[in-house]
């Protein structure tokens, strides 16, 4: 069977900056794949290409064997590709619950006319959707914060809520951009547990970017390493840990020699 996601010589440049050059990788069903690399390596750009938020990459990104090139971000969401953002893009004004409702709303058959008139069908469907959102909220242990505006939550809970919003899409592919950024040791441990549960309960394939090596090594089956837009290594956590090129990319030549 074809991999769930297949990047084939993807390149992207901004002005003179080559953010990605001929990056290829495969992501198989059920896998948790790590993507690591120093700041500015192009990890977020890769996510942006996969989700279609920056148009105009070269190369091919195939999902379930289908080229994503001509699909808009919301079409890709419809194919059940969900993501979180490095710099948290929650709907700050909306309550935590409404944040989770949004992806569900986006697919709901309710339209403007029904909303205007508040037809019984609309209200019924809305209740059903709310129940679903609330169960995700409880799953994330955020039940107490249902009515809190997302912007008022502490960062740790915001990160969790963002994962919840991605899960509300019932994704087949989940892209997590530095889910551990800004979390303390305890929150990171909870995150690792959460991701393990998510894989089990939601049967979702994941691509995770993070700088927390402990986290990545612990949850990922395989790891790819990006540096200056190029894929410099690929392997199991153990292989990556012992790879001198990777250490050099992170710490510089001097550190390796020392």
């Amino acid at each position, binding site marked *: 069977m074809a991999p769930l996601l297949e990047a084939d010589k993807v390149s992207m440049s901004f002005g003179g900056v080559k953010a990605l050059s001929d990056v290829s990788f495969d992501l198989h069903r059920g896998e948790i794949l790590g993507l690591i690399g120093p700041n500015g390596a192009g990890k977020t750009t890769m996510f942006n290409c996969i989700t279609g938020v920056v*148009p105009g990459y070269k190369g091919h990104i195939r999902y379930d064997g289908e080229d994503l090139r001509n699909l808009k971000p919301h079409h890709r*969401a419809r194919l059940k590709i969900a993501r979180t953002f490095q710099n948290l893009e929650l709907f700050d004004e909306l309550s935590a619950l409404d944040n989770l409702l949004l992806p569900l709303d986006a697919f709901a058959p309710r339209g403007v006319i029904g909303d205007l008139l508040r037809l019984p069908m609309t209200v019924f469907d809305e209740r059903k959707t709310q129940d679903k959102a609330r169960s995700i909220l409880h*799953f994330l242990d955020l*039940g107490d914060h*249902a009515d809190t*505006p997302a912007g008022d939550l502490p960062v740790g809970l915001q990160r969790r809520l963002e994962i919840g919003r991605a899960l509300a899409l019932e994704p087949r592919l989940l892209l997590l951009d530095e889910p551990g950024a800004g979390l303390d040791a305890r929150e990171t441990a909870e995150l690792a547990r959460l991701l393990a549960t998510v894989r089990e309960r939601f049967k979702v394939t994941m691509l995770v970017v993070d700088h927390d090596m402990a986290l990545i090594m612990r949850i990922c089956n395989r790891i790819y390493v990006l540096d200056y837009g190029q894929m410099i290594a690929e392997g199991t956590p153990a292989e990556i840990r012992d790879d001198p090129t990777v250490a050099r990319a992170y710490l510089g030549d001097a550190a390796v020699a020392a």
Partner: protein
Amino acid sequence: MLASVQWGLLPGFTVIGIALGGIYALAAIGLVLIYRVSGVLNFAQGAVSMFSAFVAYQVSIVMGAPALVGLLAAIGTGGALGYIIERFTIRPLAGRSALNKMVVTIGWLLVLQTAAGLIWKDTAYHAAVRLVRPSGFTFPGTSVVVGWDQLTTVVVALGLAFGTAAVLRWTTFGTSMRAVADDPDAARLWGINVNRVMAVSWIAGSAMGAIAGVLITPSINFDPISLTIVVIDAFTAALIGRLTSLPWTVVGAFFLGLAETYPRIFSSNAGAGHAVTFALVLLTLAILFRPGARLRQRITAGRDYMPVPATGNAPLRRLVVGTALGLGILVPLLLSGYYQYLAADALIVGLIVLSLVVLTGLVGQISFCQYSFAAIGAFTVGSLVGGHHWNFWPALALGVVASIGVGVLVGIPALRLSGLFLGILTIAVALFFDNFLLAPGTWDSFSGGISSWTVGRPSFLGVSLNGGYAFYLFALGVFGVAVLAVWNLSRSKTGRVLRAIRNSEIAAATSGVNVTAWKLVAFGISAGLAGLAGGLLAPLIGSVSAGAYSFQQSLTVVAIAIVVGVRSVAAAAVGGIFLIFGPELLTHTPVSTLWFPLIVGAILIVQVILTPQGVVVDWQERLRKRFPPGPRFPGGSEAPTRVLEIELPEREVVNV
């Protein structure tokens, strides 16, 4: 038509076009300087120029001082206004969004424009302050006459533009200005006095505006309004310069001047030039915002988000709404016919405020052309009922549909724009309507040669709406249904999706929301509400004429919507009442109704600084604190089912 093209006019029109370009360049230089350094798009720039030019008029024409003294007085006034605006109304907004600051400058626009109208009269003829004799010389080798004043304008424009560019580039102070423009926080760390640099840029930019104002007066209608809206042409020129490059702004200005002048060779329609401006605004915005183009847009640190309350206190809300409705039905019974008319007017204008609640309150898009959408409704009803003897109801329906269509059309170029740039686009739309679409003559062919129609009052379900109270009740019914519908929208999927788009387009899109479609839906609903209001104003007033739907009206309604609070449907009623009964109240005071926009502008400025959410929303918050709502989901905070308790392998020690 082409038969009447007079190519012989070409050289003459070239001179006129270049002179016009000089005027636009003058107006744009200060704008660009202020935008570059402080990140504020100063909508009051034209008003500052105008006010300063009137000071020169006062000194030189009324008091008889030499023109040069008048010019100096104008420069002093401009600089002082720039300082006051920056020091007392922009600086307190540090850290707030660019849109907030822009709204303050709109307040200043209203204040200065109204003040000038009160002092020097809106309509009266004003003799221009002439610094140079209008006579000129014949361009060598041709028969084209170039006026000394035209030459002066162009030379001063070039001098100021390149002088400013040189100061920015080669002086120490210019370097600090550029540093502040790039990153105020970093500049502060470098020991630059950011406040002083900002103040100087506002003073200098406004003083240049004053020079522009004085030089412009001989060439355009010297009245408070015409001069103020020269700013839209200045915006267009500045956009061609990407709002940052002074030389390109000057090039843009000359291009614009010529592009507006040449159509007059082909067409006698005076509005043709404005149509060109409109096209150019669209074109420049399209080029600037093509995918991948990076416009240097200053991003201010502050994100001012207002949490959307999960729910109000329902019994309290029912009580307030019920009381308001009861009073709304009963009180006008006791009023005279005139006040019943005003009350109906207030409700219909309330629909226009409501249209902004949808567009600005939910999606966060600003629009200065709501009255243009209303005009579509009014003109459709007017021409069909008044000109073609249609029944009122189908005409109204068609009017609403037409305005929805136009709203969506305006929404399409607006898709890529936000905040300031959308503001510019909608102003261009409003002026295009004012000067071209609604200008006498445009609708003649459609209506059989009449351009002002009488529209009688219809009957509704067999009941004649001729009486003042009957029509009022009808308006109340329409308003109530519209408010209920918008309230329904705002608390269901549509409301959530639109708010989500305002908070983060990118997250909305990756959550499966078709952002484009939903923005157009919002534009459509908003324009439809405004069009409905226009269609109802026609039978209320009894006739349709263009003056009632001008850009000025749109500007005032935006100001009022922001003052009362654009996030709340309740604001619509309050806004409508304020807009109609405010001036009425003034007739009972020593202050004339003409003061109304000034008062609105002043309240707007204070408002944005003190309670940016708006008055009504502020009250609602207080009430909500006083009478807190019950839990939204009874039992919602019961012991959560813990599911995150899976054993994990020992944490590996990793040292990369």
